[in-house]
């Protein structure tokens, strides 16, 4: 399996007036060709920033301070803006969370699609329009010809998200970063989009980073999973393995608190405490204060270690009991 993207020890910090926010602080993962990586974690754990770091769209006061982002072996962290611009939307595409906000409300859909084609390829407008129409058809939008002439607000949320996906697909990218693209949608619409995406991934061989906080979505969609907590990947591995037998206490808690994993009517298993502020993160394991297993050892920062083949976790006291060796 060839690697499309390898992220090594990525650190992206925001230098705010209140202090340095270490939004991403040592994230590593790899995405293979045609693979889907589920990047999960709670709000503020740095998922989005990771995504933006990859395509080089971290805005000041944020900056990638360390790490390598190897896209087909090329380090994007040190690439020039011009280089990145040619990759963006072309070989790496991104889909945002809020479908209502991602399309420019005052520009027609065709404008927004055609410009994307023209930004990377020298083709005639007519051809670009053709391509756009095909892309719309591909994501299941009926009568794409008419729809091209519409403004975004004439679409429902689900359709807008599909337009965004269509835009992402225009250049058949090798990697799509999808940042919670279904969170704002209704279940049935989410179902439609997930089905769409699955079909695409299967047919085009595109790699996918699917950012979400919803474990259930990842369970159904992803091959690999990376769980983030407070700017770090705390656990990673094959989806089934991780969800069935998580190593890291946080992952354990997270899976445990999913209602369907609990008996009806009984209290849910819960993680006490709350997500820490990234601004004044104490040294050592960030999960320490909420962790039932924490002890003095946790005052130091554990490394992300491959505890089992294909299973990485960042913990001194991993739940190895449940997992077969």
């Amino acid at each position, binding site marked *: 399996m060839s690697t499309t993207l390898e992220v090594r020890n990525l650190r992206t910090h925001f230098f705010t007036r209140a202090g340095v926010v270490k939004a991403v602080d040592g994230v590593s993962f790899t995405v293979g060709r045609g693979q889907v990586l589920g990047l999960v974690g*709670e709000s503020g754990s740095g998922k989005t920033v990771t995504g933006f770091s990859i395509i080089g769209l971290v805005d000041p006061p944020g900056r990638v301070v360390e790490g390598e982002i190897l896209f087909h072996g090329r380090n994007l962290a040190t690439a020039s803006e011009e280089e990145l611009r040619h990759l963006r939307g072309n070989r790496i595409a991104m889909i945002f969370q809020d479908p209502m906000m991602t399309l420019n409300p005052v520009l027609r859909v065709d404008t927004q699609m055609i410009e994307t084609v023209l930004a990377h390829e020298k083709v005639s407008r007519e051809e670009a329009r053709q391509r756009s129409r095909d892309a719309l058809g591909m994501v299941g939008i009926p009568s794409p010809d008419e729809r091209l002439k519409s403004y975004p607000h004439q679409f*429902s949320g689900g359709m807008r998200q599909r337009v965004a996906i269509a835009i992402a697909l225009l250049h058949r990218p090798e990697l799509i970063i999808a940042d919670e693209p279904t969170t704002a949608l209704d279940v*049935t619409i989410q*179902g439609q989009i997930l089905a769409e995406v699955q079909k695409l991934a299967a047919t085009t061989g595109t790699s996918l980073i699917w950012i979400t906080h919803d474990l259930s979505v990842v369970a159904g969609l992803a091959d690999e999973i990376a769980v983030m907590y407070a700017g770090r990947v705390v656990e990673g591995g094959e989806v089934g393995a991780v969800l069935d037998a998580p190593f890291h206490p946080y992952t354990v808690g997270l899976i445990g608190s999913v209602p369907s994993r609990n008996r009806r009517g009984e209290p849910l298993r819960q993680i006490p405490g709350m*997500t820490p502020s990234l601004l004044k993160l104490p040294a050592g394991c960030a999960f320490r204060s909420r962790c039932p297993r924490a002890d003095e050892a946790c005052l130091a920062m554990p490394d992300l270690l491959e505890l089992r083949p294909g299973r990485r976790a960042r913990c001194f006291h991993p739940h190895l009991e449940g997992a077969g060796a």
Partner: protein
Amino acid sequence: MSATNDTPLLELRGISRRFEKKLDFAGKIARFLGAPLREEVVHAVDDVTIGIRKGEVVGLVGESGCGKSTLGRIAAGIMPPSNGQVLWRGTDVTKLDGPASREARLRAQMIFQDPYASLNPRMRVEDIVGEAPLVHGMTTRAGFSAYVEEQMRRAGLDPAFKRRYPHQFSGGQRQRIGIARALAVKPEFIVCDEAVAALDVSIQAQILNLFMKLRSELDLTYLFISHDLSVVEHLSDRVVIMYLGRVVEQAPAEEIFARANHPYTVSLLNSVPRIEARKRAFTTVKGEIPSPLNPPTGCHFHPRCPHAMPRCSQEVPKLKEVAPGHFSACHLNS
């Protein structure tokens, strides 16, 4: 916990709520130019009847814009219905006189979705929590502090924070403040409108547990509005499914998850990703959710329904009891 009493604590009878949307300037120009426009009416809630018994948790599920919140507001007494009656312990609340009506309204409280917008940013926690009890004489100036502290403790908040402002709390804590505020007026019935939707998964569990704990401690009754089926499944005794302002199915929780009757419910359950299902192929319900502004005729679901018949587009199906306590509004049943 199951209900013992026969008169429901709260009964919504034939509730409808319309929002009339006046045309704006551009709309009028368009109409003048011949566009087929009219003053738009949204039937946010359309002839809904639900009874909630004491101690029961009723889950209300449906997709965005189907009128869940509107129904919740009506139940909580914030919004009057356009048609229909709200019966509190069997009496029409509009028929109650001043103090009794206030009493009835206080007994029904609401917890909101957005933990940020639902707290007045300019008030301290103690005032947010204690204001209403003080106004309604449930506590005195002297007992104020103790009263507030008790409510906060009950909601799982450190009373030491009572002089803080909402912005100094995290989302989960804010939701607890909202809960403390509602509890402070000693309600019997609580409408939770997507009360955990904005929270992180790990925090969500904490709040859900709190709800369950309070329910048993205070013998509370809930109308639990959510679009998250797994949450509803976990919590509710009975589930009501809404689609575009109408109730399409209503049944005890186990029953509905085991034997969903209405095609909409079925597709809904199929669309929900489940953590147990790995690398599954997602299925789709075809089509978009129609706009409540001009809902499809007949059964609102018929354009998306895999079993749609000609009749479905003409006739509104009535809720029918398909199994004991299990009601469904679908022509397939007749």
